[in-house]
């Protein structure tokens, strides 16, 4: 299912960071879904945000200086 689309995950230091980012992105009209950090990706915390590839740059711009994130990884 996921292989059909080009997904990225945004990783955060803490759940609070992830939930803050979810809210900031929602207010900016950027779609991102909170999901458990996939097992094969080194985890900073248990929750990350998943987005489609076309949104990656928009997400980086929107979170810049608003919410610290660790990194964005290809899923």
């Amino acid at each position: 299912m996921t292989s059909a689309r080009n997904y990225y995950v945004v990783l955060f230091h803490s759940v609070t960071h992830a939930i803050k980012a979810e809210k900031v992105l929602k207010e900016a009209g950027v779609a991102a879904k909170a999901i458990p950090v996939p097992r094969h990706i080194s985890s900073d915390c248990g929750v990350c945000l998943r987005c489609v590839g076309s949104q990656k740059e928009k997400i980086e711009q929107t979170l810049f200086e608003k919410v610290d994130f660790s990194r964005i990884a290809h899923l």
Partner: protein
Amino acid sequence: MDIIYFDNAATSWPKPDATLEAMNRYNEITGGSPGRSAHRLSIEAARIIFDTRESLVELFGITDSLRIVFTKNATEALNIAIFGLLKKGDHVITSGMEHNSVMRPLRAMEAGGIELSVIPCSERGEMDPQDIPPYIKKNTRAIFLTHASNVTGTIMPVAEVGKIAREKGIIFCVDAAQTAGAIPIDVEEMNIDLLAFTGHKSLLGPQGTGGLYIRKGLEKNIAPLCMGGTGSRSEWEEQPAFMPDKYESGTLNAIGIAGLGAGVRYILKEGIGEIRKKETALAGTFIDGIAAIDGIKLYGLDNAPGRTAVVSFNINGISPSEAALAFDEKFNIMERPGLHCAPLAHRTIGTFPGGTNRFSFGYFNRPDQIKTALEAIERIVTGL
């Protein structure tokens, strides 16, 4: 006969319906462990906790909601600030009106090698900020000050002290147990570095909730009191160094924090100015009323605007505990007698060790209840 609840400085009661509804909703619908498990109920629980952080930062003029650490009450928040920050050889300044939530940890640290200066206050509980500079020394690390006394309600000159502390590069920690939700607080305007608050008083949340605001960067100098699971960095066996996880080990009181968030949003909706106006009017009516009764000694300021809605008094020839029993049994009035966990404040105002009767009014009290209470006091005084 309805209960008249005048013990809001201990715990506010009743709570707004919204507080109880938020807790019921959490219990019935959300339930999950906040953020730990990443299923939808767990994430929803994390969102509810985050929304409470956002509401609190709006109330206190804080720019970043990650600066709020949840604790079980103001006492735990103050313990983090005191034990986490201070080191042997540090000098600390505090006031003669502090609660034991500040004094006991400070006295313990004093025994462990910090130096403590207690600034004397007036008999009415007032502190002159200009008394502080002569006490400042090279090793003065922090000032711990209550925002308002829990005994007399006297509001302390927090903004003035904050200005002095900032100019001298001293960390300023405010105990807002009596004021958060009752009078306006702005951590930026008041130069507050650490703000300890409780959820179950004027923030209109349940017991078991509270928190500590930590100014950006200060967490580097404050060790956590408690370490453990945070839901983050699970591969590490060391405590994370970032906010808020550094200080939030173990599952939070999510149901309580859900209620606290609703309480804070209720305050934001009503307006803290409106709340202050109503509570000041109630306290003013009461102060004027007891001034007209012979045999009553009022403590603290003789006007309401300089205090929170807390009024301490004594009745000639009747101990506070006797009076409290009469208020409860004969008049259905719930008040608090005694020392109110603040022996130092009672020494300052001259009521140690006997204590006082303390009536503390809240947003849900009514003028007719004040009238009933004044009649009750007259009857107790005249022995009827």
